[in-house]
């Protein structure tokens, strides 16, 4: 009598192959972005409280723990940008008549936009 072997489920599937590991890191990156937003919000609150509160917080941010957090958060932010820019053509398949707009063009446009915004922010901050 045939007795099919039930399908297997793995609780560690996300460790099994590289594409799955990258996926989980991509999802995890949102957590670090959220934590970093928290730091920014606290910073804004300190600005509101006055210049000494602001300076105290900036001093605190220079502790090794905070610096390490920022380094990790930066790596995750880069991973977040790269992986999601990579995904843009999948969700947004622009078409010119019968031809699809080249995925590389869509991805490139996002990098250009990011670069332009970064320059804009730097100009505003430094001027």
């Amino acid at each position, binding site marked *: 009598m045939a007795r099919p*072997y039930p399908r297997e489920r793995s609780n560690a599937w996300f460790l099994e*192959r590289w594409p799955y590991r990258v996926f989980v890191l991509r999802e995890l990156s949102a957590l670090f972005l959220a934590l970093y937003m928290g730091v920014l919000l606290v910073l804004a609150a300190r600005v509101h409280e006055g210049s000494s509160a602001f300076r105290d917080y900036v001093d605190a941010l220079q502790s090794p723990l905070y610096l390490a957090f920022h380094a990790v958060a930066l790596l995750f932010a880069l991973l977040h940008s790269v992986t999601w820019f990579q995904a843009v053509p999948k969700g947004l398949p622009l078409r010119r008549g019968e*031809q699809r707009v080249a995925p590389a063009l869509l991805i490139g446009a996002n990098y250009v936009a990011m670069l332009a915004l970064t320059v804009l922010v730097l100009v505003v901050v430094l001027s």
Partner: protein
Amino acid sequence: MTQAPSDATTIRLEIARYRPEQDERPVLERYDVPYRHEWVVLDALNYLKDHIDGTLSYRWSCRMGICGSCGMMVNGVPKLTCSAFLRDYLPGPIRVEPMANFPVERDLVTVLDDFMEKFQAVKPWIIRDGEQPLEEGEYRQTPAQLADFKQFSMCINCMLCYAACPVYQHEDEFLGPAVLALAQRYNHDSRDQGKGERQELIWSDEGIWDCTFVGECSAVCPKHVDPAGAIQQAKVESTVGWYRSFLAPFGRG
């Protein structure tokens, strides 16, 4: 890709065997088969069945990547074994297992009932409110209208995308990549009028919203159907649809 022929004469296969009458669970068995530069994994399996162990069970048919029956896990990755060259796995061994995420009927043969049921659930055929009279001729389509869904129509139902999908592995209800891409194929067909009938199922949790966009379905697809893309596009449409019904509840769908 050109590769110099290897001087290997044999290559080792590790095959998952499951014989329900004697095995409690699938077990790996090792076989040495001749190595040929131009052989694919399926050729090695056929040699094995013809010359070493005739009891090995597996599915195959066309040997040219169009019938979609020879999907298996090759070194843990879903592959059509008719398109997986031995030379890409040198020096071996090559582990061949049944497609992941499906129950195993026997050896490398999986149970496909779940896929077949979900396949039908999305009504993968052209639905019309009413047929136009014959004298009005055929339903015409511009090349641009064809391009809108053609990619999603290339699916050969090999189910490699299901074997690659961790959501399907963990969510019994999830319709899965190929079926959702197929729904998109008909929803985007200018001759079809059945979008409304498919909508409730497709736009539900067991439809597109269970997908977490791992993206491996598209990576393993031998026909470049891009089910992950189809699902993300359907998510955009579903979101637009939701806002539209929210902002203009009495408007047209």
